[in-house]
């Protein structure tokens, strides 16, 4: 089955008089278990596409399916519910809640998902270990390095095993070593749980890990490159 299918997605932004193309007739299919990079220079439409796939933003025209289900026709509440249960988001800025500890940041989403407290505790302990943050669960974001914070953000995104993870330039603020560690974590999750990854980036360090790289420019898909992982 396809994890993501997009047909003829268009999105135009209006900035006063000026029209800016976000997406220009994008067709796209991503298989379940895929590990895909969206590559484009800044302003190429990566974020716009990820937001459309994640139901954060609605395209002007075109259709989107997630796991076979049409989502561009869903209402706000249904989209929120879909994001909550089926999609994990990772952003460039780590975007943790500053007053919550690492563990609480992870558990907060589970609490919203309705996971009972003891199960939350169990899962957050396991995921903290999995992302290599064992023992750091009680730290607040300000007490952690950028790489550690990004791992908490990843842990938060994947703790309930979503079928699809959307990551928007997740390594942009990380040094090479940390970036590589993060990518290895993604690959591991991809291989272990079959989680589909769509990663927007223009970072060569990231693209090395991709099984497929979709190149965009000015909102258009210009190249679709399938490769064996380096």
């Amino acid at each position, binding site marked *: 089955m396809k994890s993501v299918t997009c047909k003829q997605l268009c999105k135009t932004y209006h900035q006063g008089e000026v029209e800016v193309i976000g997406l220009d007739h994008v067709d796209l299919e991503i298989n379940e278990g895929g590990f895909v990079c969206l590559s484009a220079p800044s302003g190429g439409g990566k974020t716009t596409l990820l*937001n459309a796939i*994640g139901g*954060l*933003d609605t395209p002007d025209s075109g259709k989107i399916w997630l796991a076979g289900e049409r989502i561009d026709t869903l209402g706000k*509440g249904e989209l*929120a*519910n*879909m*994001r*909550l*249960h089926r*999609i994990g*988001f990772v*952003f460039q800025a780590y*975007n943790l*809640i*500053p*007053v*919550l500890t690492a563990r*609480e940041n992870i*558990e*907060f*989403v589970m*609490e*919203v998902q309705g996971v009972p*407290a003891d199960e939350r505790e169990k899962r957050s302990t396991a995921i903290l270990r999995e992302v290599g943050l064992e023992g750091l669960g009680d730290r607040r974001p300000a007490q952690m390095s950028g790489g550690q914070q990004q791992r908490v953000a990843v842990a*938060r995104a994947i703790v309930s095993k979503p079928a699809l993870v959307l990551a928007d330039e997740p390594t942009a603020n990380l040094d090479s070593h940390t970036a590589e560690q993060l990518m290895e974590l993604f690959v591991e999750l991809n291989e272990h749980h079959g989680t589909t990854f769509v990663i927007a980036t223009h970072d060569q360090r990231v693209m090395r890990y991709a099984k497929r790289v979709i190149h965009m420019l000015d909102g258009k898909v210009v190249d679709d490159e399938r490769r064996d992982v380096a």
Partner: protein
Amino acid sequence: MSNITFRLAWRNLWRRKRRTWLTVGAMVFSNIILVFLISMQLGMYAMMIENTLRAQTGHLQVQAPGYKDDLKMRQVVPDVIDLAAKLRSEIGSDEIAARASAFALVSSEERSYGLQISGVEPEFETRVSSLPGLVTEGRFLEDAMAEEIVIGSVLARNLRTGLGDELTIIGSGRDGSFAAAVVTVVGVFESGMPDMDRGFAEVPLGFFQDTFYMEGAGHSVVVMAPTLIQVGALGGRVESLLPAGEGLVVHNWDVLLPGLKQAIQADFVSAWFMYGILIILVAFSVLNTQLMSVLERTKEFGITMSLGVTPGRLGRLVLLESGLMGSLGLLLGIVFGGALVAWLGHTGFTYPGLEEMAGQFNLPGRIYPQFSAIGLLMGPMIVLLASVTASIYPAVRLHWLEPVAAMRAAE
């Protein structure tokens, strides 16, 4: 509300310590004022009620049904003295006394006035009424059969009469027949209540019964409860002790003196206009704080929404935050306000001019604020409610927040 959401709300408050403390401070300040003023009012009302009831109806009265509305002579309580004695022994209280009442014309050598004459048991009337203690000239009644009368000071002046003078009483008896007697003035009282001082007199109940052909009957048994709060329960007990088959009823003070309760309620309501302004000011300060706080967190809320958290849930978080601030204000307000009230409830509170004013109405010159749950809770609870209500707007506004736009917002 679940665990982490609660922690999140609590910690969010302390991201801007000073601003939160300022808002909570405004709540505490107004809560202290409200606790103090409401407790003062309640203390004053209790005093007013107690004084008025002590001088007039008492807390409870046993009467014939319908008597309170038209005061007909023939609507009697039979064997009233025995009934009062029975209630005293059954309940184990001396603060119970029999009374009878009639309208009559009282004449001195020079003038005549119509007034209400009450027949009382001298021995027990002193226990239920403040009037015996308000006799400023002469003495109160002593003997149940004596042909004596105690009158108000204004009436004494109007009749141009004084201690030792004789007055003629003319009225109609229980059966409607002509009733007349001559009595000696033995005391003059000054209640501070113009109606009483002008148009009220007391005679011994035994003498009253003879004069008005009462055949052992009277019109009421007055019962005092230890405190105002116990009136309801005591009323039930008295009711259960009444002789069966005579159809007697028990009335509470608020039924006997509906005007008193209404006056108090009206005063209480009018005070709330002032309290309302205070509460609205606090509500606006909360509104302002929460609007700012939500605005500052636009980006954070955008991220949380992108994770699938609904605006409704985030709105409830904002309401919870206000609720927590309000609860903190409530707690501190009750503690400090309660301490103030407890202290003043002990020492009393007065201000220049109060003593002179109160003295005219035989009220004490000090007000003792009432330390009560309602006095402590009422104001702060409403402030809490207003705080949460004021946050509905910032909370609802989150529904218009677009996560994508919010995430682009500057931190």
